[in-house]
């Protein structure tokens, strides 16, 4: 890449349901924390890219009353109406083009306002699925899960095991919403039934949360920050719509991972990555994500779990923060993964720090059954 870009600061809210803050206060507080973390003033910011959606915020032009809270008064601003990782990607393009040196990326969703699952149902084809009326993100993902489980011999217990791994890890993460240190497989299997095979604890919670990351181009980053975290690889891809796509594979994630690895010169992700923070909104997705990221062959995702390879003390820890099953403030979830990856690299993940992390992977997804995926490779050092 012509011009390198680094992350010089970050902040996230304490994700919870029914946060006792207005949307404006939630965003303002996290933006202030992020600027303090990066050691910059509002004057240093060149451009602001936010991520929120009108359907989730219950407002047409969901960012119009928040421009002042994100510090965009008389600053270049735009809104990506998707996952925060794509907002980060767009902000990075602006920096690499040389138009600006410092970019603030903000993403939020207050799930308490309106059930995000209802919003995902409203993203389906208005002429077909919305007329037939059986598809929402939970039923579609349940259909995907059953196909995957039957083809590769994965049981409900295996899914429960994944949920247990995430929820136990989350208990060490102060920002996580679900903290269940003593959760076990039976408790997961016994939680409220949604669409088979999913019970409630296998599905990401409805959360209110905000995440902010501050980017800077190379020379500015070196001036402002002693340990910048470099974006060594980044890519995003979109898949076909639900009806015309092979639900058994996350094709767009495979493509995004391949391109990001190329940019970051990664040959063997399982060995070269220190940690991976992926967005799995449903338990089975974590296995499919392992395979799409090339950590193992198709169908072998469950072995990485059973062999403890992706445990916090394993060869390649995945989601030491607890991931999306611990907190899912929709638009912010991908950016939270980036922040958790940065914390691991900078050694600031106290309580769930993975030792000696040099390079990390962060993944954001969007759309029913992860129709869009973004992969970012982060690294410390020069």
């Amino acid at each position: 890449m012509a011009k390198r870009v680094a992350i010089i600061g970050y902040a996230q809210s304490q994700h919870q349901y029914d946060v006792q803050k207005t949307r404006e206060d939630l965003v303002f507080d996290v933006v202030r924390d992020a600027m303090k973390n990066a050691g910059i003033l509002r004057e240093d910011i060149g451009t602001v890219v936010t991520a929120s959606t009108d359907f989730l915020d219950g407002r047409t032009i969901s960012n119009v009353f928040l421009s002042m809270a994100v510090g965009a008064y008389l600053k270049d601003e735009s809104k990506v109406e998707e996952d925060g990782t794509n907002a980060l990607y767009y902000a990075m393009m602006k920096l690499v083009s040389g138009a600006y040196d410092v970019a603030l990326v903000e993403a939020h969703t207050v799930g308490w306002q309106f059930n995000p699952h209802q919003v995902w149902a409203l993203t389906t084809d208005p002429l077909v699925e919305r007329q037939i009326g059986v598809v929402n993100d939970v039923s579609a993902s349940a259909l995907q899960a059953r196909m995957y489980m039957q083809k590769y011999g994965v049981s409900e217990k295996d899914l429960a095991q994944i949920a247990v791994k995430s929820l136990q890890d989350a208990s060490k993460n102060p920002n996580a919403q679900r903290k269940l240190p003593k959760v076990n497989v039976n408790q997961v299997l016994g939680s409220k039934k949604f669409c088979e095979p999913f019970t409630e604890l296998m599905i990401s919670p409805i959360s209110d949360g905000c995440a902010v990351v501050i980017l800077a181009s190379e020379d500015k980053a070196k001036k402002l920050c002693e340990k910048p975290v470099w974006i060594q690889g980044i890519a995003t891809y979109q898949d076909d719509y639900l009806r015309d796509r092979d639900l058994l594979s996350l094709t767009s994630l495979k493509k995004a991972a391949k391109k990001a690895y190329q940019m970051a010169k990664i040959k063997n992700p399982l060995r070269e990555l220190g940690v991976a923070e992926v967005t799995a909104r449903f338990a089975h997705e974590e296995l499919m994500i392992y395979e799409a990221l090339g950590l193992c062959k198709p169908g072998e995702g469950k072995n990485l779990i059973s062999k403890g390879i992706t445990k916090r003390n394993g060869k390649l820890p995945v989601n030491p923060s607890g991931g999306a099953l611990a907190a899912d403030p929709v638009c912010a979830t991908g950016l939270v993964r980036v922040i958790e990856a940065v914390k691991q690299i900078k050694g600031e993940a106290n309580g769930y720090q993975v030792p000696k992390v040099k390079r990390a992977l962060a993944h954001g997804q969007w759309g029913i059954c992860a129709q869009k995926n973004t992969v970012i490779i982060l690294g410390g050092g020069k």
Partner: protein
Amino acid sequence: MRNTAIIGCGQTPHRARRRDVSVAELVSEAVSAALEDAGITMKDVDCIFSGNMQGFGGIAQPDLWLGDWIGAPGKPAIRIATGGTTGGSVAHGALYAVASGMYDIALAVAWEKHSDSKEAGATTGLAHVGMGNLFHALSYGLSLKNLIATTAVGAAAGVAVYQARFYMHRSGATIEHLDMVAAKDRRNAAKNPYAHLRWPNCQPEDIAKTEMIAYPFRYGHVCPASDGASCIVVAEEKLAKKLCKKPAWLLGLASYSDEENQLQSENYGGVGVLDPSEQMGCRVSAKKAYAMAGITDPQKEIDLAEIYQPFPSQELIFAERLGLFDDGTAWRYLEKGETDINGSMPTDLSGGVNATNAIGSSALQRVLECALQIMGKAGEHQAAKPVHKAIAHGWGGVTNYITVTILGDSPR
């Protein structure tokens, strides 16, 4: 910043009701037209930027379902939406993607299909901007009379009517000038087959006869709600020169936000802007874009402008804020015909938003129309003078979002 150019422009005819197509088909009309104009196929496109105001169409994240229709499967695709400036922000997405060197050919498509919404296209969507504030204020006894009077004086005119009053007061412009602008733009639109309100040889007197909504706005002044989509193809320098005889080169771009301009901020709080026609965001955006383009005297160096003017007063307000005329003087040049097709500063020869408003598409259409003028492809509404540098403008939000894009007939 890598040299970048628009090499293909495609749009659909913008009409009140495009009931012959689904929104997906409408969007693919514009995309296939742009690909054809650029002389490439969908395989050559590296990434897709798209956007609309999803609340108006009632479909959340429509780019997921109609991704097939804009070529997104298997490609990087990013959705951008910023209210009225959506089209401009989507265009900026594609321009930055190529200017940053990360992609060689990017496609930007934006649209709106108002006729799919039962409530007169825009009303629910516009009211929904401040829906949370509205319920909040009503719970504190905001009287319906006060609400109707202050915010909804004549449906969509509510927001811009105050802005017009402020401008007219400080500049001396009169209602006759608004009639002139509306007539000029509907006359211009008659020479643009893609425009919506096309009135051949429309005169100010024709507009003056229309019923008054709330002084100074008449029905004849207000923009329509249209179904329509527009799309541009952006390429890096080598490819642009290879594929296009006369590319429209990117010279400068910016989109600075201002404080909410009038009526209310979050939770029905007040706003610290005393004159909604001051438009600091536009002034600062223009300053940045001109600096990038190396333009020091816009009044001489800019040959043509496409201004986002759902209301005629805004053509005058924003022309001045873009530095094309001195403060408070735009209406004098209007009177002398300087902003007509053969004038020194032709403005909105496409008819602009006053004649055509598919809200998602509108701000992208401004960039597209400037590109057509520079490429010499504007057909009947091509400016008389040669167009070397053109400025495209968009406003949105609570009159506090701006997009400015400057294109030229030679690279930076």
